[in-house]
């Protein structure tokens, strides 16, 4: 697209639009009331509704996790029955994966930020966007029906033939997640189209923020992988409903085929969860280093590389399953290849810090925590990719610790970084910086206390999904449980000060961190249509060596409410060539 238009460069008349520090009208003050929220097609309100839902499910999944950890304080029964325990870990996994991690960054933060970073008024299909949200809600309702009606005890992976024989409400949950999948597909479709077609004048592919590149890679995975999950769950539903036998060994079917189908989605899904986190890290680390990103194209293209290779490694979940030897070898090899672009990203971020002007605000603190925890998650991933080691470590707590380091230490910490970074933009309020730092500290300590011991006991042989365990693991389980309580307190503190900031937080300036990102050139909170002018971009999003004025340009003849007299003064004509 970019190259096609280079030949007919046009000249646009631009002038400076400095965002007002006291916006009279924002998306929060217009279209008020519950009904307006529920029927809104505004990407910002939809993003916030997703954020609320994700927070609700995170609370639910988190409480389940704490109950699980409490049960594991003693080797035998502590306070719940084995069947209850099995249901709790199944629901903890299913809720955290499908209802929290998958939609968290793309659907919640991405919805809010993506059109703003593109200088668009909205996503390409706003009504479809709202529909995605309600599809998500319907999927959730199906899952709650299952909860009220026998629960679910198959593990979030629904392995056959256990899931075809189970007496719990498998059909409700598989249908729920089938429906939920369409929410994810439609969001991905919407984002891809928006990124291609809705960019403001001047935003070429080389000037896209890395957050957009990350969301672009994520959307591609969503569109390509989710339908396979949909058909898998449909087949599983039919298996239970009609007994079609495709995964049933007694009818000539094959349970390993189910695992292939399931992981064909669920491995790329891991990248649906983590890749948007990479986008946030790139945004935050440049803002708080006040410095150009190191290796823009390396980071942008490695996201696409991960998206691509990520499709070819699903078999590494099945090294002990009895799949063919050739498949096992190839999957192991490709697994190592996917580690390389991830490593490249980490080193590029660290290099960005070099000679920067580093300010340790809360979002930046989370970036540091992310780099540390996610590196551990990555290295242990390399360990698990190695065939001989994986045979020993598969389905032990080592794996549990590994994916918590990646999903929680990676995705969730990135989400917290993004949430703190964009909170002033989303709500127009500042949170208490000191409390936020205490929260980050609690999360860091609690997280490591919870999951480091799990590496050791997993390596010693403690299998996952165990209700009872043999005595030698007691000390590790107890340390882990104490860690999880600290983690819980950390999250409560975050919820507390964010809530307080909404009620009586200090008013946020338009650009509190001095970022060069386009989203910060809107008011805090933004106007209903994001910008009251058409933004024009001449610099890259990380050009910190250029003055702020060059990032505040818009079409000279676009509408403006003109509350700020400085526009008139800065209204000098400037010629900009767009391509």
């Amino acid at each position: 697209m970019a190259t096609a238009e280079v030949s007919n460069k046009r000249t646009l008349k631009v002038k400076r639009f400095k965002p007002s520090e006291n916006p009279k009208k924002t998306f929060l003050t217009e279209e008020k009331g519950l009904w307006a929220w529920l029927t809104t097609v505004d990407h910002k309100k939809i993003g916030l509704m997703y954020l609320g839902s994700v927070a609700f499910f995170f609370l639910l999944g988190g409480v389940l996790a704490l109950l699980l950890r409490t049960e594991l304080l003693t080797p035998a029964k502590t306070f719940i029955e084995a069947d209850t325990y099995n249901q709790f870990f199944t629901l903890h996994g299913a809720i955290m994966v499908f209802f929290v991690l998958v939609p968290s960054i793309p659907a919640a933060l991405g919805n809010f930020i993506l059109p703003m970073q593109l200088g668009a008024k909205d996503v390409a299909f706003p009504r479809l966007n709202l529909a995605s949200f309600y599809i998500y809600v319907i999927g959730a309702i199906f899952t709650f029906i299952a909860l009220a009606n026998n629960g679910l005890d198959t593990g979030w992976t629904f392995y056959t033939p256990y899931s075809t024989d189970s007496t719990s409400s498998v059909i409700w949950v598989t249908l729920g997640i089938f429906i939920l999948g369409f929410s994810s597909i439609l969001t991905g479709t919407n984002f891809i189209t928006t990124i291609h077609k809705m960019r403001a004048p001047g935003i070429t592919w080389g000037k896209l923020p890395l957050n957009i590149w990350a969301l672009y890679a994520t959307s591609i995975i969503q569109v390509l992988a989710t339908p396979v999950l949909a058909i898998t769950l449909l087949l599983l539903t039919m298996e239970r409903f009609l007994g079609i036998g495709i995964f049933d060994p007694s009818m000539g079917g094959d349970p390993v085929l189910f695992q292939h189908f399931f992981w064909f989605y669920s491995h790329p899904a891991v990248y649906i969860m983590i890749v948007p986190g990479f986008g946030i890290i790139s945004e935050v680390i440049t803002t708080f280093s006040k410095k150009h990103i190191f290796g823009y194209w390396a980071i942008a293209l490695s996201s696409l590389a991960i998206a691509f290779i990520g499709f070819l490694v699903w078999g590494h979940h099945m090294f002990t399953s009895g799949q063919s030897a050739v498949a096992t070898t190839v999957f192991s090899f490709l697994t190592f290849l996917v580690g390389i672009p991830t490593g490249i990203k980490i080193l590029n971020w660290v290099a960005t810090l070099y000679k920067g002007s580093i300010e340790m605000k809360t979002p930046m603190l989370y970036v540091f925590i992310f780099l540390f925890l996610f590196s551990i998650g990555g290295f242990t991933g390399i360990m698990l990719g190695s065939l001989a080691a994986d045979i020993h470590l598969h389905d032990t707590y080592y794996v549990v610790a590994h994916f918590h380091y990646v999903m929680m230490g990676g995705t969730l910490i990135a989400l917290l970084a993004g949430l703190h970074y964009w909170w002033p933009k989303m709500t127009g309020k500042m949170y208490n910086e000191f409390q936020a730092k205490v929260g980050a500290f609690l999360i860091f300590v609690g997280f490591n206390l919870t999951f480091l011991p799990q590496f050791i006991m997993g390596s010693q042989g403690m299998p996952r999904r165990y209700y009872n365990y043999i005595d030698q693991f007691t000390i590790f389980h107890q340390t882990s449980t104490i860690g999880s309580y600290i983690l819980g307190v950390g999250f409560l503190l975050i919820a507390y000060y964010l809530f307080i900031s909404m009620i009586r937080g200090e008013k946020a300036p338009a650009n509190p961190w001095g970022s060069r990102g386009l989203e910060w050139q809107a008011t805090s909170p933004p106007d209903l249509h994001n910008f009251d002018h058409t933004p024009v971009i001449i610099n890259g999003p990380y050009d910190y060596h250029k003055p702020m004025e060059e990032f505040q340009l818009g079409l000279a003849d676009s509408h403006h409410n003109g509350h700020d007299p400085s526009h008139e003064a800065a209204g000098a004509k400037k010629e900009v060539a767009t391509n």
Partner: protein
Amino acid sequence: MANHSTSHPTHVQHHFVDSDQQFDSAKMGMWVFLVNEILFFGGLFCAYIVYRAWYPELFTEAALELNTFWGAVNTVVLIGSSLTVAMAIRSVQKDQIEGLKKNLLITIALAVVFMVIKGFEYAHKFEYGIFPGEYYTYEGLQHAQAAIFFSIYYMLTGVHALHVIIGIGLIWWIYVRAKRGEFSSEYYTPVEITGLYWHLVDLIWIFLFPLLYLIE
């Protein structure tokens, strides 16, 4: 992209700059959605390939139970409907709204014919006890896994039939809007993207027909 101050025609939603951007976006969105549809059917085709590799003789045997003649008729019917959809788009591009409406109605009629034939085929098989999965009672095939072939057959054709029904609904909706005079050569995005969807439904059947009916 043009600037914001150009006056918006009524069919252009507020967040688009102009009609072209809206048309391009809608078309691209539909293409992305079609890719997703292909992957969706891809899962089923994958199951088909795996089981055909495991039980090749079952597939040749069981395919004989399917009625190739009516399968072929259905193929012709669907290809015909793809043609009329293409003609509908051509008509609206030339502002021939009558032609648009006529072609849409013929498409719907052909789609209904397809579904009726499919219904007869299913009914015929149910008579023999060829039901999906554990309800399978037919004894004409000796193969122990005979039920699996028909499970895959019903899943593939069933999901495809569901797409045809959705297609009929969409085309009817386009017809109603055409009757209300909403379309012209200036604005016919919904006609175009529904057409894209219908071509995909047709294309999938063109794969299904030889894979299920014509195995030698």
